[in-house]
């Protein structure tokens, strides 16, 4: 939706200054759960900060940083509407263009949510993510506006779930997520071991590359300037993640396998636990 005024033709005389003034009056009102005053909202917020654990003396200097991080995490919680119409609390990656539950960002940031004992947001996000893993294990890159958006980021979903479980244990939620996590890791193993060596390339052609693109992934690597070349004229080629097995992707998959093994143990699936341990040992 875009609102526009008419064009206004103006002739600015020599040295003239012309001013236009706008005023914006904001208002808001809570629709559910009764009115919430600003003072009440502030009280609620500060209660959350007050509930944060004390930092050890040697880390006390990081307190402003911790408070900032806590504030950002709290600000980015959202109530998403799932494809079947339910509402679940999730964590967005931020505002202004990143208003979505991102795969990678959530797995890392939800640890902070777990430290604040916000089980609903953590498990809400992970259940939503588990629902978004396709039958063949294919992942997505983010969830927003009621849709899963296709793509891939570095595989840290099982790692994220397991570490959140360590902070906020919920065996039922873990059991809900486990089958999807298993499908997801198997998808990586089946699809991205391009040379059959038990090592995996990054999921190329799936959109972004975890926002940590290395120039050595470019076709024309090495990219160092040769005598006679100019920076402006250098052809670096395009990034191609399939050119080699990246260390970080394999490290992440190792952690995924270890996490699945630990989950299987908690869920009393001894065979599954042994299999994932074996896979992790083979890779690691």
């Amino acid at each position, binding site marked *: *939706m*875009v*609102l*526009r*005024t*008419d*064009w*206004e*033709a*103006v*002739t*600015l*005389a*020599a*040295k*003239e*200054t*012309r*001013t*236009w*003034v*706008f*005023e*914006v*009056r*904001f*208002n*808001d*009102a*809570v*629709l*559910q759960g009764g009115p*919430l005053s*600003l003072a009440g*909202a*502030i009280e*609620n917020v*500060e209660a959350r*900060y*007050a509930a*944060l*654990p004390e930092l050890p003396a040697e880390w006390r200097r990081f307190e*402003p940083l911790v*408070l*900032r991080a*806590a*504030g*950002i995490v*709290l*600000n980015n*919680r*959202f*109530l998403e509407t799932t494809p079947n119409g339910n509402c679940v*609390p999730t964590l967005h990656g931020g*505002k*202004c*263009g*990143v*208003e979505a539950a991102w795969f990678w960002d959530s797995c890392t940031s939800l640890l902070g949510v777990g430290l604040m004992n916000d089980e609903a947001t953590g498990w809400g996000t992970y259940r939503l993510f588990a629902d978004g893993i396709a039958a063949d294990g294919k992942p997505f890159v983010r969830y927003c506006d009621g849709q899963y958006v296709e793509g891939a980021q570095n595989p840290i979903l099982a790692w994220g779930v397991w570490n959140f479980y360590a902070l906020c244990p919920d065996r039922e939620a873990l059991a809900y997520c486990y089958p999807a996590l298993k499908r997801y890791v198997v998808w990586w193993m089946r699809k991205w071991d391009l040379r059959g060596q038990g090592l995996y390339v990054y999921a190329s052609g799936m959109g*972004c590359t975890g926002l940590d693109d290395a120039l050595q992934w470019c076709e024309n690597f090495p990219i160092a300037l040769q005598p006679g070349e100019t920076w402006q004229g250098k052809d670096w080629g395009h990034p191609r993640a399939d050119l080699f097995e990246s260390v970080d992707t394999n490290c992440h998959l190792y952690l995924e396998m270890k996490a699945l093994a630990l989950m299987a143990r908690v869920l009393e699936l001894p065979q599954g636990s042994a299999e994932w341990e074996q896979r992790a040992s083979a890779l690691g």
Partner: protein
Amino acid sequence: MKVESHAMLSMKTTLDIPLPPYVERSRNLVRFCRHMPHEQLHDWFVADFGFRAELSRFSFLKNYGSLPGPDEAFSHLQMDARPLFEKLLGMEMDYPGAPYRLQPYSSMNYYRSHIEEVFHHTGPQHHPFPPVEGRCVMFFTATDVLRVEFELRNKSAADVAVKVRWFSRPSAGLSHSLELLSDGFRHACVQKVMRDYEASATVRGGSSKSRIQNSEFRIQNAELGIPEKEWF
């Protein structure tokens, strides 16, 4: 962890020196702009984002790369917030008969009390710039009331013809309503977050300072359709 109430954190000054403009009623503008190389999160107010006045329930953002005027605006009555505007108020400008395409260029000055955006238009390299310099000042005159002043200054000794217009891109939310006023519009939308709420904004103005009550600002059209977001 003990935290000072943010209301207690407003800075006071006892210096007997003239205050810069805009500080009289709002001396606690806090900010957390988009990530820019030279900027960081505010280090003493942990839960805020955007520019806002003390106790204001609304913040707005300003990106140096956008057209003049405030960008996204958020309500944060709750801890959760969704944009009320994708672009609160933007200024478009044209120089009729210009020999080449002109691109706007902005630079920003951030103060505790207000934001000042200075803008002008550039053309191809080695071509003269138009002699008009623009300024947009964003200032909370009261809690939840934002004043936006656009100013054009002709620095040359000759008349310069320009065309100006303003636009706004409200966010739709779950449901929204739009009411056109004689001198602006009112936009309201319902957001479904931890606790559902309705956020609204009334935008008025657009004429010169002396004629704000009889503004010529009016809505030309309301085109439905949400612009594509820029993901990265």
